[in-house]
């Protein structure tokens, strides 16, 4: 049934004469705003985290290899794949390090290795072939990363990246001559740690680090023997991959150094170029999963696992995405509260207007016409709330960094400090996003048009339902009872 003129006219009058409708509209707007802003910030963080994670991980990683696997045995098979662009051998080994010259307090003097002494830190040595790694991963970016401690001010540049070896690789390239890996054996062993790690360990470039580890010597298969390893490395540079696991646990050294530590000195006859993993860069646009499964098959499924960068970080990324899903669920509850607000507002309006319903019936209004009065009220409140919330939500998401920088850190901080000053408290700086906590120079936000549409349409649908229930109640009043209602 078409809506009659009186439904629109009366709905407009009711809306304009009742401030409680503004409350309902504000509730819907707030819910839509929160859904858009929080998810935009979360998506921004996730996008940043994924970028960092991707940058800290090779496209594909051949892993779970048997001990003492030779790179040579894998290389030809991997390179044969049409989508493989570059590969790099990696050798990981767990170790401890402590800065030489710093006091080391032994707790148990009888320990064969002083690992219980305070001052040791655990680290995973990541041995890389610099030349191959530059082609395969974002190593160059890690080394050239210039972290910002504050907005716009670059305070620390990495120096001497990847120690001497990378400089030599670069020099060889500049001179268009082949790089001779034996050059690396003639220089002191260098090690790179992340900037954060260097800061937390209070070490800087030039610091000598004693690296201690152990490995199972299988040269006599009948009686493998645990051997201690100690070697002094020099901290020759810092990196920042943005990948928390890499930055917090890895120390990068040349792969030959790790091989030597594990008893495979390149100068020994019979030594093999052992690897624990192989990093792979694939052709841009290639489907990583397809290439990974194909390589697993080519290598033999029982030989190795081939993981895409997502699979390498599956647990971490799953947790991040799960957090976003949980946040959406919580915010959905906020949306329901807004719907209840609309319902309560409209229910109250219907209750207060029962007599009007009777009057309208006496004047010849149909039940549908009466229902439309209250439905138009509720839908108008819902639509205005949705549009307002979506508009402010999008603007807030896009300009959140500016709002934080100029309003919260600026004007609001100034106002708060005036009051703090009145009570003798020291000045403070307010911020919804402390940049030093995340090593980001902006609040990352991603406004997803699909999500904005889903939220707006969803909220609209919920408010229509919330308005429809009281409107239906209004239409069901018996005219005579409504006229006598007090």
């Amino acid at each position, binding site marked *: 049934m078409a809506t009659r003129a009186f439904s629109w*006219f009366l709905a407009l*009058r009711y809306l304009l004469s009742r401030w409680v409708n503004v409350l309902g509209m504000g509730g819907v707007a707030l819910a839509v705003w929160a859904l858009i802003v929080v998810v935009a910030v979360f998506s921004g963080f996730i996008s940043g985290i994924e970028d960092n994670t991707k940058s800290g991980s090779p496209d594909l990683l051949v892993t779970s290899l048997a001990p003492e696997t030779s790179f040579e045995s894998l290389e030809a098979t991997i390179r044969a794949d049409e989508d493989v662009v570059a590969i790099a051998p990696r050798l990981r080994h767990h170790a401890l390090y402590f800065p030489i010259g710093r006091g080391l307090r032994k707790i148990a003097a009888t320990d064969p290795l002083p690992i219980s002494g305070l001052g040791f830190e655990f680290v995973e040595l990541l041995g890389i072939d610099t030349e191959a790694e530059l082609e395969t991963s974002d190593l160059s970016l890690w080394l050239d990363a210039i972290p910002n401690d504050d907005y716009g001010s670059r305070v620390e540049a990495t120096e001497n990246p990847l120690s001497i070896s990378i400089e030599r690789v670069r020099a060889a390239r500049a001179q268009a001559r082949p790089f001779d890996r034996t050059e690396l054996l003639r220089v002191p062993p260098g090690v790179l740690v992340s900037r954060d790690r260097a800061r937390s360990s209070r070490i800087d470039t030039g610091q000598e680090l004693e690296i201690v580890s152990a490995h199972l010597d299988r040269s006599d298969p009948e009686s493998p023997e645990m051997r201690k390893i100690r070697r002094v490395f020099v901290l020759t540079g810092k990196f920042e991959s943005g990948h928390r696991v890499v930055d917090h646990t890895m120390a990068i050294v040349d792969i030959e150094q790790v091989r030597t530590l594990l008893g495979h000195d390149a100068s020994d006859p019979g030594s093999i170029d052992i690897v624990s993993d192989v990093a792979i860069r694939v052709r841009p646009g290639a489907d990583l999963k397809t290439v990974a499964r194909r390589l697993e098959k080519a290598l033999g499924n029982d030989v190795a696992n081939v993981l895409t960068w997502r699979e390498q970080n599956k647990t971490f990324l799953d947790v991040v995405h799960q957090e976003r899903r949980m946040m959406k669920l919580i915010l959905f509850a906020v949306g329901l509260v807004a719907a209840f607000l609309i319902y309560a507002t409209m229910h109250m309006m219907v209750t207060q207007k029962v007599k009007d319903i009777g009057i309208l019936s*006496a004047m010849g*209004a149909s039940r549908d*016409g009466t229902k439309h009065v209250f439905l138009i009220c509720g839908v108008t409140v819902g639509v205005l709330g949705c549009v307002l919330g979506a508009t402010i939500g999008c603007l807030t998401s896009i300009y959140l960094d500016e709002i934080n920088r100029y309003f919260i850190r600026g004007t609001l901080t100034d106002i708060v400090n005036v009051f703090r000053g009145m009570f003798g408290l020291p000045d403070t700086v307010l911020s919804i996003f402390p940049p030093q906590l995340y090593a980001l120079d902006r609040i990352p936000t991603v406004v997803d048009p699909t999500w904005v549409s889903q939220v707006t349409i969803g909220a609209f649908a919920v408010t229509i339902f919330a308005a429809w229930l009281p409107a239906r109640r209004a239409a069901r009043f*018996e005219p005579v009872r409504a*006229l006598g209602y007090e």
Partner: protein
Amino acid sequence: MTDPILSAEGVTKTYRVGKREIPVLRGVDFEMQPGEMVALLGASGAGKSTLLHVLGLLDPPTEGRVRFEDQSVSDLPGPKRAKLRHREIGFVFQFYHLIPELTALQNVKLGTMMDQGPLAWLGERKQHDQDARALLDRVGLTERLTHRPDELSGGERQRVAIARALVANPRVILADEPTGNLDSSTSESVLELLFEINRESNIAFLLVTHDEGLAARCDRIVRLRDGVIDA
């Protein structure tokens, strides 16, 4: 004698309160001629208002039927009854029943919006406005057009209600104790207005009242006692 414009045939109305059934109308036969002024008298609880609501199609009869002209209308579907009520029947209540958010003019104009869509109504907006102003002028409220009900006296509110009842050009007006809430001088002026409209417009009036004096001025008196019309 012409055909009745509004009639009730064997109308009963029983309300149910819990498990109890309370008969209010017990077989009412009633007719109104076009342009007739009928007074419906009866003690409190006799069923006067119930009969008025049944005749005005606000409340369906339990048994029997209501006819408008020669058509049985009490069993029409809801939307058709609403349309008939709008076009042919006007109501005037003891407590005025105006919409408090609307001015006097808007309350009257509301009656023009019942069977038109918003665009059609806007197209005839000027005509509707003129009609409503003319009616308020006729009931003596030219100076009170923009006043809301709470800014009007009881007599003025009842005049707005009368103007509203007239706006759709009905052929029957059902008035439920239209002066029951007014002082005597105001009552007299409101009654004068109703009789004047009856004389000039040939609209049939059914006046529910306790006032024998008022009833005596009508064309005919119908007495209702315990849900039955006294012979």
